[in-house]
């Protein structure tokens, strides 16, 4: 097996046992990127020299006995994490030339853990999208079939991990943007509890929903990364000051004593593609085999999730994105002769279609005369949705469902129908509205050979039980180690 296809955990073992150096590992990954990225197009910025320099430093640190928990591991991050040394474009013409003056807290944590930062990964503009086709720069291709979407908005992160162009990646998840591309590309993706991971230096989309998380080759790798990135940060007042368990300790065989709820609304006729339903039902049977008890539960407000989300998220986005005015950073139309003209021409020239659409929806939902009918109403429905989940969690430890109602679809297929795309987020957005942790675990394949993930959701800060169930599913699903053929 080639060195690039091994897991992050295995790479750490080999580095510890001096079977490989970080420089050799990094060179192997850079060669892989050279070979496949022209076909996959996951990277927006690749820092070859910087990566090799960091790898040399990691090898020195390890020799000195000063190796951090990710010492020498080549990783990459979505292009909405601020990085001092590299551009942070957010997939937008607005930030095409932006180089942040500081690192995001999670980037600092990766660096302190000894990771090698390879570069920045493509995404839907400002993380708005479910296909990664809203990038102003490159649209990535699904490694399992390059005619198909990667999913989004962390499409570059999912594709890069699936194609072995890095050992793991970070993404951000506002309504499924880690879990859905992870599912569609056949990798593990976790959206932690709101407040578990610092968002300082993550370019804001919808602040009550955004959360940072890992995309990895397997469940153990995800736990290793969560150990590094979790925790309180005084620079993010929404991060919570509570201790971080060692998530790898949750990776235990057997699910005896664990109750898993099956939300009946998710399996009602017509919502799920037959292949998705079949694979997920097999996954549920495997969780039962591992010892879990299954119960049927109800989330009565499921039908209202998309509507609530697509008012709240655009409302928050319209406010967050007001900062892009052409003055302090970002694109400026320098031909404008007045201040107001400069604002509007810079914003109109810098933002793409989907971002404008969401700013318009959000501005409308917050505007005089509409606030009560839209934003306030949606925030009340959000309470009802959260209560559904809290009630379900009195009867079970976990909820199981698909991640996406369908496998990946063809590039271009739904590009002109924004509402149809919004509706495809139905299974993932409620975790963001409720603030709970959720995870996508590879579970099987469609008849066309496209990956299908299973989603697990738990109550606030119960990531360990997610890891435990995910680990047991992974042991049984038989998809670990299956790789797409790219070249």
């Amino acid at each position, binding site marked *: 097996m080639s060195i690039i296809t091994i897991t992050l955990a295995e790479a750490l073992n080999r580095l510890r046992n001096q079977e490989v150096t970080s420089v050799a590992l990094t060179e192997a990954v850079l060669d892989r990127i050279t070979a496949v990225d022209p076909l996959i197009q996951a990277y927006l910025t690749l820092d070859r020299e910087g990566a090799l320099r960091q790898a040399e430093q990691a090898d020195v640190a390890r020799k000195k006995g000063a190796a951090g928990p990710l010492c020498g591991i080549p990783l990459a991050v979505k292009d909405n994490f601020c990085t001092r040394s590299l551009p942070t474009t957010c997939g937008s013409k607005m930030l095409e030339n932006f180089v942040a003056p500081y690192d995001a807290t999670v980037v600092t944590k990766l660096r302190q853990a000894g990771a090698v930062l390879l570069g920045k990964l493509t995404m839907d503009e400002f993380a708005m999208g479910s296909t990664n086709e809203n990038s102003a720069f490159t649209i990535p291709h699904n490694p399992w079939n390059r005619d198909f979407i990667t999913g989004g908005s962390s499409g570059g992160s999912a594709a890069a991990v699936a194609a072995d162009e890095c050992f793991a990646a970070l993404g951000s998840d506002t309504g499924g943007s880690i879990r859905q591309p992870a599912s569609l590309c056949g990798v593990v993706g976790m959206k932690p509890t709101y407040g578990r991971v610092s968002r300082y230096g993550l370019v804001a989309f919808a602040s009550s929903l955004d959360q940072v998380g890992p995309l990895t080759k397997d469940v153990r790798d995800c736990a290793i990364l969560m150990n590094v990135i979790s925790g309180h940060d005084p620079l993010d007042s929404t991060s919570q000051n509570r201790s971080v368990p060692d998530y790898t300790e949750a990776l235990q065989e057997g699910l005896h004593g664990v109750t898993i709820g099956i939300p009946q609304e998710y399996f009602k006729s017509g919502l799920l593609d037959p292949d998705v339903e079949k694979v997920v039902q097999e996954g549920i049977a495997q969780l039962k085999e591992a010892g879990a008890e299954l119960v049927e539960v109800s989330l009565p407000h499921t039908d209202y999730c998309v509507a609530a989300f697509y008012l709240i998220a655009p409302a928050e986005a319209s406010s967050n994105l007001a900062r892009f005015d052409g003055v302090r950073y970002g694109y400026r139309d320098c031909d404008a002769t007045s201040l107001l003209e400069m604002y509007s021409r810079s914003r109109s020239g810098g933002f793409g279609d989907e971002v404008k659409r969401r700013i318009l929806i959000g501005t*409308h939902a917050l505007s005089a005369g509409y606030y009560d009918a839209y934003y306030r109403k949606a925030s009340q429905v959000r309470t009802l949705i959260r209560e559904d989940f809290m009630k379900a969690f009195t009867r079970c430890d976990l909820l199981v469902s698909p991640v996406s109602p369908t496998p990946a679809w063809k590039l271009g297929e739904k590009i002109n129908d924004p509402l149809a795309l919004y509706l495809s987020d139905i299974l993932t957005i409620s975790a963001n509205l409720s603030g709970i942790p959720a995870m996508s675990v590879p579970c099987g394949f469609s008849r066309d050979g496209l990956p299908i993930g299973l989603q697990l959701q738990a109550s606030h800060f119960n990531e360990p039980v997610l890891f435990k169930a995910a680990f047991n599913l992974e042991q049984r699903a038989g998809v670990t180690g299956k790789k797409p053929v790219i070249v």
Partner: protein
Amino acid sequence: MKITKEEVLHVAQLARLDLDIEEAERMTDQLGSILTYVAKLDELDTTQVAVATHTNGQNNVFREDEVHASLPRDQALANSAVQNGEAFVVPRIIG
């Protein structure tokens, strides 16, 4: 709920976005179908329901008002399209 092109142009102006005619028409159609869809929230009676503010029980977070180092001026200005080494430069506001 439908939205007219005039309303879309008004919202665009509030959001400081210029839309050309083609864009305004397309956005009117798309926003119309999205707003029609979200109107399904009206099916729910929420008169007794609290507005969600936080999802995990967090209250206000305070800290001591301590002085910390801030970004040096050259770094704060570095990403501006037009600056003069001391300040961001914008078109004249007062004639």
